[in-house]
């Protein structure tokens, strides 16, 4: 399998603090890869470099054969990386449908002139966009919630809407930042099967961030473990689970002895 995304020696420093320390990383096409690590391990910082929110201090990120290092977020989204946020960041005062439509921004062409004139081409585009947005909402389990303000949705539905909005950007690679945070075990299970379904049905490549290792074990092809900004292990879930450094990072150095 070819690699959809590769990161070479990516590094991020905030002042003197090294948040991500020369991490090499790759995501094979159509795989589900998880990035795990204890709180504060640098997962979200790494994630933010992939999506353009932060510029890496050093290193190179290549996505679908194009160098995206230091590109602005909207350009990266346009190339095909969609993302969700760890702490839900929906457009709270927009409806579900509008949220999804904003996600389609880079896939639509209506400019200011055509919007004012409302040309037939634009009308058609808008109609199709609405149609597609409704389909996506339904696919993500939000049937009948189209015209509800995002803030009025239940917590679980807000999480689903985040995914629907990210899917609306028509990504090749979907980045999910702790998508199951705050979910109970049953919801978590449902969500994880939804993630697998995304790969099977839509051919997506998925990168998951989690701090709870158990969540990702079932679905991941590969797992990468970060601790204090360094990559300490990489491999199949089984390999990683047995890795001594991982156990130490998660449970403390005394754990092995016991």
């Amino acid at each position, binding site marked *: 399998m070819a690699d959809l995304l590769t990161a070479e020696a990516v590094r991020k420093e905030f002042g003197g603090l090294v948040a991500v320390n020369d991490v090499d990383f790759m995501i094979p096409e159509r795989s589900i890869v998880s990035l795990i690590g204890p709180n504060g391990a640098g997962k979200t910082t790494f994630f*933010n470099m992939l*999506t*353009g*929110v*932060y*510029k890496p201090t050093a290193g190179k990120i290549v996505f679908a054969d194009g160098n995206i290092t230091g590109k*602005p*977020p*909207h*350009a990266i*989204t*346009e190339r095909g990386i969609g*993302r969700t*946020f760890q*702490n839900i*960041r*929906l*457009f*709270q*005062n*927009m409806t579900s449908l*509008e949220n999804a*439509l*904003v*996600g389609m*921004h*880079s*896939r*639509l062409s*209506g*400019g*200011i002139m055509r*919007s*004012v004139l*409302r040309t037939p081409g634009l009308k058609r585009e*808008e109609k199709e*966009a609405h149609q597609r947005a409704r389909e996506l909402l339904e696919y993500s389990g939000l049937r009948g919630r189209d015209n509800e*303000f995002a*803030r009025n949705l239940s917590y679980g539905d807000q999480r689903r809407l985040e995914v629907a*909005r*990210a899917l*609306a*950007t028509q990504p090749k690679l979907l980045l999910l930042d702790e998508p199951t945070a705050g979910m109970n075990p049953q919801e978590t299970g449902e969500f994880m099967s939804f993630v697998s379904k995304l790969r099977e049905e839509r051919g997506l490549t998925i990168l998951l961030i989690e701090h709870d290792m158990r969540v990702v074990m079932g679905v991941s092809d590969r797992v990468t473990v970060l601790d204090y900004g360094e990559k300490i292990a990489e491999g199949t879930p089984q390999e990683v689970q047995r890795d001594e450094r991982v156990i130490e990072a998660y449970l403390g150095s005394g754990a092995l002895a016991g």
Partner: protein
Amino acid sequence: MFGNLVAGIRARWPEFEQETRRRAVRGGIVGGAAFLVLALTGAASLSLVFTFVVALALYVPAWSRLPRGRWVVLIGVILIAVLYPFYQVNMFEMPIFGEFPSVDTGVTMLIFIMMALGLNIVVGYAGLLDLGYVAFYAMGAYTAAWFASQHFSGANVHFGAVGVNPDSPGIHISIWIVIFIAAVFTAVVGVIIGFPTLRLRGDYLAIVTLGFGEIMPQIARNGDNLFGQNVTNGPQGINPIDPPGFGDTLHNSVGVPSDYLTYDKTFLGHDVSNVELFFWTALVLVLFTVFCSVRLRDSRIGRAWIAIREDETAAAAMGVPLMRTKTWAYAAGAFFGGIAGAYYASFKSGTFPDDFFFNISIFILCMVILGGMGNIWGVIIGGGFLAYLNQEGLGNIGGWMNGHGVSDFLFGHDIDVPLYQYGIFGAILVLVMLFKPEGLIPSSRRKAEFKEGVADQPLYDVQH
């Protein structure tokens, strides 16, 4: 087509009936009380009854519940506005506020409404606090002054201008073209100003725009010797500016006025004055602004503006280019500011630096806030009301206070109320912020934002 409409009306009839009944009760109580108060304070006349009937006819039936019913209200309001010069003299006298605003005041009100709508795109839609909007107004006015007056006396360019001697020096281009030039030019300036400033967030943006709002009038004031060129004619300003008009050819063939200032015709027994022509033209410009505002709001770019206002980081992550989208908002707002400025210059037949000081920016911002940010109806009402107060209302109130001994009772002597205008506007703003921070007629979105807040505090900043 027609069958669809009938079916639609039939389908929504029960809702319509129910809502109408509710509105009839509400309108009857509030309207009846207002009617009674007005009648008792000496405003009783046929015109009051008529006003009452028209207001109830627009409000009570739940028009918006019917398919295409919104048009009924819209067309009703447009008709009321268009016919205003015809019935203005017959209107009853309001208590305290006195007579209805003159048509002349009406023109100023409409121009300020246009500017408020332009600023609404920047502040209400995209959520960018612009404290220097007057700069665009000034740009528009000076563009009109350059291209439709004797200012550049070295040149001798004539193109479609009316009411000027063909031999008179300076650039004289038809006002309609000048308004268009002004709009485009101002939009371009908006982009140029926006480029460095829109990288900033929130308060920082406000401070920089405040700076631009201060720079522009200073350039206007001192521009009589800008690198050796007389650009703005300094504190005296530039006047006269050519009037609007369609020229003799169009006048003779279609009958539109050839020159607004010399127009003299009677229509339905009503002597049409040139101020009324300015009024109707301003109305057309306002309708154009409203049309564009609505279309933009419901478009891809309008959604992107709202998304940026709600959460910049998330908007960027969803593929909205922040700089470009914000710059578009700035340009669109500037565009309408430019139109308003150019038209106002032609209406007043002059442009003076004192018209463009910082307080005007705040004044226009007050209109947007008072009416309800993001809501077009709200902004129209806010803009119209404040412009009216500024032009006529405060004077009338002062006259009433002095005439009825209220000033004497409160302060011991007569007072000149318009002198305290900014204190009064400030007080209005404070009261609105205290009791109805979302404005008089808020958009449903904005109302929610004031209750629940938006995610405008980024957890981390996009570093671009």
